[in-house]
C-alpha cells in the first residue's frame, strides 16, 4: 500500500524548491571556496554571494548593501531587537511589540526586560489585529524600537505594517517587522512600507534551512549580535554559508516573481479548505482574520478534542499538519497566540493549522476534507466533553 502523503505544514517549513537546490549544489564541493579568500575558489564564491544578495535586494526593494545574511530567521529577529536596543540605550529603554509575536521576538524581549529594558506588549483583537490607536498611545519618550510581525505564523493575520511604520517614523522610532511568514505570501517592498529592519527566513519560502536575512536600512544604528571576522561588512561574522546564501537568493527571486499567481492559487485552495471544513464538521471555529489573512493559512479549533491526538490521527492517514496545543509545544500552556485572541484553554488545545504551499493541489484538499471529518468524530466519541444527544444530532 503506498500511503498518500499530504504535507500541509508549510508554515513550519517547506521543501527546498528543485531550482533552488540545483543552484546550491555546485557550492558544496565544486565551488567550495571561502568568499574571503583572494584566490579563484574564493572569488567564485564571492561572486555567487553578490548575485544572491542582489536577488534578495530586488525581492525586497532594498539596496544590496542593506541585505545581511544570518543563520536563521530567529537570529535576524534577535539581531534586530537586541542590536537596536543595545546601540540606542542612550536614547531610551522602551520597546513596543505585540502579544502574538513569534518566540524569537518575545523571548528576546523578555531577556531584554531582565537587562533594564521596558517592553510594552500590544493586545490584539479576536482576529489577531493590533490597534494602531493603542500603538500610538503606547509610545513614550523613551521608546527606541517598535517591532510588529507582518503576518502571524499560527493564525495568518496580516497587520497594517505600512501604517504602523508611518507612526514610528513620525516619532523617529526604529521600526522592525518579522516577515518570516509574510515573505512569499504578501508583497513586500521595504521602501514603500517604510520599515527600518525586516527579517525573513529561507526555509519558509522553499529555500534551505539555516539561513535568514536581516534588511537593515542604511543609517540604522545597531550593535552586532555576533562578533568576529570581517564578513557581511563586519556586521555578521562567520564564514559565509555560500550554498545557503545562493539558495536564499534563488528562493527570494522565485517567491517574488511568482507572487501574484501563488497568492491566487493559495487563496483558492485555502478557501476550498475553509468552506469544506465548515460544511462537513460542526462545532468548529476559524481562528484568525477572515480577510486580512495569509493566502496559505487555515487555522481551525475543533471543540471537545485535543490537537496532538488530532495531528497523530491525521498523520496516520498521511496528512502532516500542526497545532497550537500545549502537547505539541513541549510547554504546559497552549499557544500564546490563540490565548491572545481570547480562546479558552480547551478550544485552544483543539486547534489545527493547515498551512498550504506550492506543493499542494486540489486533490490534497479533497483528501483532507475526506479524512478529517471521521477523525474528528472518532476523537469526539472518546471525549468526556462531548455528548451525543438523541437523534444523532451533536450538541454540547
Amino acid at each position, binding site marked *: 500500500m503506498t500511503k498518500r502523503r499530504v504535507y500541509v505544514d508549510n508554515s513550519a517549513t517547506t521543501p527546498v524548491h528543485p531550482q533552488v537546490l540545483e543552484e546550491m549544489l555546485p557550492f558544496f564541493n565544486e565551488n567550495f571556496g571561502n568568499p574571503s579568500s583572494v584566490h579563484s575558489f574564493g572569488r567564485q564564491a564571492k561572486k555567487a554571494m553578490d548575485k544572491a544578495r542582489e536577488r534578495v535586494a530586488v525581492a525586497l526593494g532594498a539596496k544590496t548593501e542593506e541585505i545581511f545574511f544570518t543563520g536563521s530567521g530567529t537570529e535576524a529577529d534577535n539581531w534586530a531587537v537586541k542590536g537596536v536596543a543595545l546601540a540606542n540605550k542612550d536614547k531610551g529603554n522602551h520597546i513596543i511589540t505585540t502579544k502574538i509575536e513569534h518566540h524569537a521576538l518575545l523571548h528576546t524581549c523578555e531577556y531584554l526586560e531582565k537587562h533594564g529594558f521596558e517592553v510594552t506588549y500590544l493586545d490584539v483583537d479576536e482576529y489577531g489585529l493590533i490597534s494602531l490607536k493603542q500603538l500610538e498611545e503606547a509610545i513614550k519618550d523613551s521608546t527606541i524600537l517598535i517591532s510588529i510581525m507582518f503576518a502571524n505564523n499560527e493564525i495568518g493575520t496580516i497587520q497594517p505594517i505600512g501604517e504602523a511604520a508611518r507612526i514610528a517614523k513620525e516619532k523617529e522610532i526604529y521600526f522592525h517587522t518579522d516577515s518570516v511568514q509574510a515573505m512569499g505570501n504578501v508583497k513586500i517592498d521595504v521602501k514603500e512600507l517604510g520599515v527600518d529592519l525586516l527579517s525573513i527566513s529561507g526555509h519558509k519560502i522553499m529555500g534551505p534551512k539555516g539561513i535568514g536575512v536581516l534588511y537593515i536600512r542604511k543609517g540604522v544604528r545597531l550593535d552586532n549580535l555576533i562578533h568576529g571576522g570581517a564578513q557581511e561588512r563586519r556586521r555578521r561574522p562567520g564564514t559565509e554559508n555560500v550554498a545557503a546564501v545562493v539558495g536564499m537568493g534563488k528562493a527570494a527571486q522565485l517567491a517574488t516573481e511568482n507572487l501574484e499567481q501563488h497568492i491566487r492559487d493559495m487563496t483558492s485552495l485555502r478557501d476550498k479548505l475553509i468552506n469544506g471544513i465548515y460544511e462537513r464538521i460542526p462545532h468548529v471555529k476559524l481562528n484568525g482574520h477572515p480577510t486580512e489573512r495569509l493566502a496559505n493559512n487555515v487555522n481551525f479549533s475543533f471543540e*471537545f*478534542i*485535543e*490537537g*496532538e*491526538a488530532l495531528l*497523530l490521527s491525521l498523520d*496516520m492517514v498521511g496528512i502532516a499538519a500542526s497545532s497550537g*496545543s*500545549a*502537547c505539541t509545544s*513541549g510547554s*504546559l500552556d*497552549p499557544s500564546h497566540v490563540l490565548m491572545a485572541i481570547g480562546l*479558552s*484553554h*480547551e478550544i485552544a*488545545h483543539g486547534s489545527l493549522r493547515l498551512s498550504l504551499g506550492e506543493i499542494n493541489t486540489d486533490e490534497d484538499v479533497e483528501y483532507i476534507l475526506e479524512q478529517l471529518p471521521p477523525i474528528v468524530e472518532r476523537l469526539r*466519541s*472518546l*471525549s*468526556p*466533553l462531548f455528548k451525543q444527544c438523541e437523534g444523532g444530532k451533536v450538541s454540547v
Partner: protein
Amino acid sequence: MYNETVMEHFTNPRNVGEIEDADGIGEVGSPQCGDIMKIFLKVEDNIIKDIKFKTFGCASAIASSSIMTDMVKGKTIEEALALTNKDVVDALGGLPKPKVHCSVLAEEAIRSAIEDYKKKMK
C-alpha cells in the same frame, strides 16, 4: 515519538465509553492543562467487573487511559489502588518524558473513581 504499543492503544483504545449506572465515577484533569480523564466503574464483590473511560487529551493520555482500564479490569479494589503511574508507563513500553504526566493522570483517575465508589458505598 510514541512506540507501537502506545500507538496501538491510541488507535484502538480498549474500554471506551460510559457506564450508565456506574458504581463509581472519577474525573481528573482540566481543560486548562489539556487533559481530562473520566472513569466509570462497575464493582462486584470488591472486584472491578467493568470499567469504561472517556478522555480529552493527547495520544498518550488516551493510550494511558486505555491500558490502565485493561490493567485493573477484573482486579480487586486493593489491587487497583496499588497501581502506580510507573506500572502504566511500563505496560505501555515507555512514554516520552514530557508525556509521563499522562500516566500520572491515569493513576489519579482510577483512584478518584474508587474513592467515589467507596463514598457511595458508605
